[in-house]
């Protein structure tokens, strides 16, 4: 779907650094169809199921992204430390987070293939923060991302942080992915 520049609101889910793609979606689960409307929900069920329990939902830990037997999460925004999404090229990683209901991620840095897949597949919006916010934000805090002014608001803690503009990928993000962007710019014929 297209990603508007409206504010993104929702509860935070906080993770540490080097959360790799095997933690985001363990390899045993990469077999489900992403097209079948029922089967694809399994990706929401298992999203972030590879994160060691004590590091899942910081600072407390032992919090699941999606509750047992559910496929959609109450959390909407992931806040994490450096190198989020390192490891494999599996596009199932940003896809499973979108299926679980995640709208945006805010981290201090990304691994490049995860970042690219998030943008080109139009799954969610990968924002970068200037500092590591994973020690500031608590899982469950109510957040709001003001895309126009590049600000992350923590409504629970009444704090604000500047985040980086999307830069050269903004057009692809707001088009909703590489195919929509390519159609808008005439690279690929309209269907």
């Amino acid at each position, binding site marked *: 779907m297209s990603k508007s520049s409206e504010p993104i609101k929702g509860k935070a889910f906080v993770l540490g650094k080097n959360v790799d793609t095997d933690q985001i979606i363990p390899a045993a689960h990469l077999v489900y169809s992403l097209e079948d409307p029922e089967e694809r929900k399994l990706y929401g069920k298992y999203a972030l199921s590879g994160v060691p329990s004590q590091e899942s939902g910081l600072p407390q830990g032992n919090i699941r992204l999606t509750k047992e037997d559910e496929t959609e999460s109450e959390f909407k925004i992931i806040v994490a430390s450096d190198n989020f999404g390192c490891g494999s090229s*599996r596009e199932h990683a940003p896809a499973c987070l979108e299926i679980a209901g995640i709208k945006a991620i805010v981290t201090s840095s990304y691994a490049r293939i995860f970042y690219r897949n998030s943008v080109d597949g139009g799954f969610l919006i990968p924002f970068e923060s200037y500092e590591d916010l994973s020690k500031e934000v608590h899982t469950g805090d109510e957040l709001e991302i003001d895309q126009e002014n590049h600000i992350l608001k923590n409504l629970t803690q009444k704090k604000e942080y500047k985040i980086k503009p999307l830069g050269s990928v903004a057009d692809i993000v707001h088009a909703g992915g590489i195919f929509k962007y390519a159609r808008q710019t005439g690279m690929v014929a309209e269907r």
Partner: protein
Amino acid sequence: MGMTLTEKILAKHSGNDRVSPGDNVWVDVDVLMTHDVCGPPAIGIFHKQFGEDAKVWDKEKLVIIPDHYIFTNDKYANRNVDILRAFAAEQDLPYFYDVGTDRYKGVCHVALPEEGFTRPGEVLFGTDSHTCTAGAFGQFATGIGNTDAAFIMGTGKLWVKVPETMRFVFEGASLPPYLMAKDIILKIIGDIGVDGATYRTMEFTGPGIKALTMEDRMTLTNMAIEAGGKNGVVEPDEVTDAYVKSRTDKPFEKVYSDPDAVYHSEHFYNIEELVPMIAKPHSPDNKATAEELEGTYLDRAYIGSCTGGKLSDFRAAAEIIRGNKVKLDTYIVPATTEIARALETETIYGTPLIDIFREAGCKIGNASCAACLGGPSDTFGRLNSEEVCISSTNRNYPGRMGSKQAQVYLASPYTVAASAVTGVITDPRVFIQQTVI
């Protein structure tokens, strides 16, 4: 101002005289590779976006190599191979290496060179992060997702942000007898960190690199992604020429970095001064020397994958294992069927490698990715509980080889084999001094 090898390839493939780091360019793709995990969703997106009757942009340039979840009873995994098979038939693809046939190859990153698809100067994309392996042949090769692969299937093009290049210069005449390329790359990753090369090219050069075989160079570029690199690359030379020309008649044009190319940074090493290295759980940059970890508890040893399952990797392991019994459950998984066959014919003092492993009590699996990335629960060698494993593979984040309770130590095949024989982490220098003449 000159250009690096990577910049030159991207300039040529985007129709530009020159490109600079940070430029976004659309490049023409020479080869797109996909496999059984990411192929089916890429095919789904291709049909959705270009139509049910759409044809791929160039069937000579699309290579499909099922390799991940092959020897399993998982119904979803087997369905994914069926999807590839149907697509190959529908598109009349000449380069589909189907499971259960004589054409079946095994691990894509080792199969691509064997089948002549890694050619200097070209652009190769693959739906797998270790696609960067092919940079060993002096080409631009990197991993992409399903959506980007579907885009290439329909258009033959993809946008690329031109990366800055980090240059790693190696002095030294040859690798010491106890050292492998795996030790070199674990040392580099340990030094710069798992995000030390994010968005960048890692270019490996110098006399120490020229002295390496093609398989050694592949081990280096293979793990560029473990430092976050976009691609890894080695300048082509007569070693590259000899390998590529033995595998394909297709012409290629070698490309070299200019002497006045601009680099992000330069890093200097001497291959003769390095020692056997290990990455401790749970990160490829959690470095230690094998000597420092001597005696560490282990349950299992694993030799396989695109990183550590090539013929030279098994030859190295067999040198140490020969004449011994393994004290750990030791899994041997050749990357490809060609390597599996070579294990029967390659010998040390007249004994085939496969017999050396069998007589030592190793368990031998079929060519595939197997337990390197865990996979379905019935995968050969998978860590299903709290096992502690020493492995010649590439990644050791929590859960990588199966259970997130397991622990994985990454090391060279020499170090894995030495540890398999003693039952605890062991510096291979002890064995090599005993056995190598």
